[in-house]
C-alpha cells in the first residue's frame, strides 16, 4: 500500500493520473505532460513534492556533524536561510543520497532528502551521529509545494504572509521562514520560483489558492523532462551507492578545501580524482531519429563506451536528449544503439534548456 500526501484529494479532484513513485502515489500528469512542461517554461506550474522528507537537525554538535556527513561544506553557509546542494556519501565514496541543506542557525540546519531513500537516509544519519550532540527530527507535519516558472513568484507572493512576501527579494538558493511556513528560492526545473514548506493542514487550501491564481498543477512527468533539460541529476538513475559524484557530473559539489576536513568517503574520492580512467558524465542530443532512453548502450565505432543514465524527449528543443556515463576519451559524437540500430548523437555539456529557452547551439 503506497502512501498518499495530504494533497492527494486535490490531485484526484484536478484529474491527475496517479502512479506509484518512491513508495507514494503521486501525479504523473493532469492531462498532458508536454503542456505542463511548456507551462513551467513559459508561465507558472506547481508540483506536490510533499513525498520528499524535511529533516531538522538541531543541537550544539550539528555543524561538526554535517561537515563530517556531507561532501559539500556547510561552512560555506554564512547567512541565515542560505541553502547548499550536497551529496551524502558512503565510506566507498558512493552516493547515499543527494540533498539540499539550509542554514537556519548555528545549532539548527534543515535538510530535504529524496522520498524513496528516506528510511535509508535516516538510518545512515542516525548511525553517523554517534559522538555528536544533536537531534534529528523528520518534519512529517510539513507538506511541500514547488512553484516554478517565469511568473511563479509574482503569482505566489500575494498569497503569502506579509513577512514572507519579502521572499520576492531572495537571491537564488536562499530561504525565509514565518512560523512553520518556509519559502526557498530553489527548484528542480531550471526556472525561477519557490519551493514552499507548508503546515500539512494548510496545504490543500494553499494549493487551491495557487490554482486560482493561475498556477497550473504539474506532475512527475513534466518534473522529469524539466530537470533533464536543466541538467539536474536524478538520484537512483544518474547516481546511486555504487557511483561517486565524480562520475555523475557532481564534482562541483565536492568541497576539497580545507584539506583537513575528513568527510565520509573523502579517501576513495581523492584516489578516484587522480584516476585518468574515471568515467565522464556527459549530455547527448540525438541527431538521428528516435528517442534516447535510460540504459541504452553507446558506441564509438565498434567499441562500447558507456550507457545512458537518463534519457527522454526535450519539449523545449523538440529533440531527444540524455545524460550518459562514458569512458573519458569520448569524442564530439557517438552512436546510440536503439532497437538494434546505431543512431548518431552529439556530445554536449548540460544544461540543455533553462529560463524558458534552449541554452545549446545545435
Amino acid at each position: 500500500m503506497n502512501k498518499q500526501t495530504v494533497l492527494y484529494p486535490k490531485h484526484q479532484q484536478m484529474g491527475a493520473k496517479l502512479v506509484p513513485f518512491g513508495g507514494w502515489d503521486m501525479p504523473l500528469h493532469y492531462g498532458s505532460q508536454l503542456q505542463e512542461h511548456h507551462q513551467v517554461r513559459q508561465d507558472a506550474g506547481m508540483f506536490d513534492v510533499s513525498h520528499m522528507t524535511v529533516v531538522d537537525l538541531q543541537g550544539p554538535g550539528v555543524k561538526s556533524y554535517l561537515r563530517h556527513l556531507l561532501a559539500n561544506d556547510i561552512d560555506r553557509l554564512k547567512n541565515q536561510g542560505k541553502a547548499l546542494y550536497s551529496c551524502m556519501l558512503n565510506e566507498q565514496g558512493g552516493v547515499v543520497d543527494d540533498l539540499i541543506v539550509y542554514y537556519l542557525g548555528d545549532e539548527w540546519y534543515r535538510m530535504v532528502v529524496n522520498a524513496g531513500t528516506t528510511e535509508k537516509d535516516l538510518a545512515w544519519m542516525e548511525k553517523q551521529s554517534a559522538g555528536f550532540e544533536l537531534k534529528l527530527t523528520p518534519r512529517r507535519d510539513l507538506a511541500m509545494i514547488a512553484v516554478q516558472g517565469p511568473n511563479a513568484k509574482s503569482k505566489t507572493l500575494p498569497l503569502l504572509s506579509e513577512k514572507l512576501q519579502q521572499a520576492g527579494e531572495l537571491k537564488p538558493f536562499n530561504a525565509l521562514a514565518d512560523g512553520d511556513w518556509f519559502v526557498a528560492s530553489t527548484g528542480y526545473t531550471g526556472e525561477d520560483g519557490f519551493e514552499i514548506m507548508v503546515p500539512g493542514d494548510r496545504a490543500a487550501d494553499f494549493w487551491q489558492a495557487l490554482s486560482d491564481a493561475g498556477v497550473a498543477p504539474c506532475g512527475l512527468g513534466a518534473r522529469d523532462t524539466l530537470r533533464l533539460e536543466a541538467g539536474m541529476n536524478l538520484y537512483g538513475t544518474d547516481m546511486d551507492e555504487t557511483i561517486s559524484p565524480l562520475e555523475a557530473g557532481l564534482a562541483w559539489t565536492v568541497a576539497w578545501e580545507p584539506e583537513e576536513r575528513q568527510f565520509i568517503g573523502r579517501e576513495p574520492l581523492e584516489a578516484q580524482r587522480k584516476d585518468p580512467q574515471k568515467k565522464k558524465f556527459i549530455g547527448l542530443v540525438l541527431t538521428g531519429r528516435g528517442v534516447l532512453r535510460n540504459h541504452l548502450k553507446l558506441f564509438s565505432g565498434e567499441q562500447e563506451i558507456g550507457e545512458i543514465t537518463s534519457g527522454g524527449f526535450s519539449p523545449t528543443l523538440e529533440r531527444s536528449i540524455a545524460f550518459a556515463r562514458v569512458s573519458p576519451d569520448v569524442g564530439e559524437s557517438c552512436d546510440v544503439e536503439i532497437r538494434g540500430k546505431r543512431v548518431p548523437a552529439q556530445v554536449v555539456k548540460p544544461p540543455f534548456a533553462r529560463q524558458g529557452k534552449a541554452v545549446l547551439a545545435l
Partner: protein
Amino acid sequence: MSNAPTDRRYAKSHEWIKDEGDGSLTIGITDHAQELLGDLVFVDLPEVGQSLDAGGDCAVVESVKAASDVYSPVSGEVIAINDVLDGAPETINEDAFGDGWMFKVKASDMSELNGLLDAEGYDALVAEEE
C-alpha cells in the same frame, strides 16, 4: 470507458484495422492506446513494400514516457504510410481513429480479419482492463 467506431475491427494489442473496400486496409492504434501512452513524441513506421506477418511488430510509437511496439493485425504488404506522423506524432493523440492512421496494407488473407474483435468486443476488453 471507450467508444470504438463500429466501421472497423480491433486487435487485443490495441490496433484498429479498417477495410477501405478497395483492397486496402488502414491500420492505426486506438484512442484508448494513445491515452495510455500519453503525449507521443516519435513514431517509427514500416517501409512501403515491406511484408508483414499477422501479430508481428512492425512499428514503434514513443511517448514522453516509453516506447511501445505496434503489431500488424493481418499479414500483407505495406502500400502506404502516414508521413504526417514523422513531423507531427501528436496527430495520433489528437485523432487516433482518423488523421492519426499509421499505415495501409494489402492483405494476403482477408479471412484474418475474422479473428479480430468488433467494436463491442474491443470496448468490453477496455472496460475489463479498467
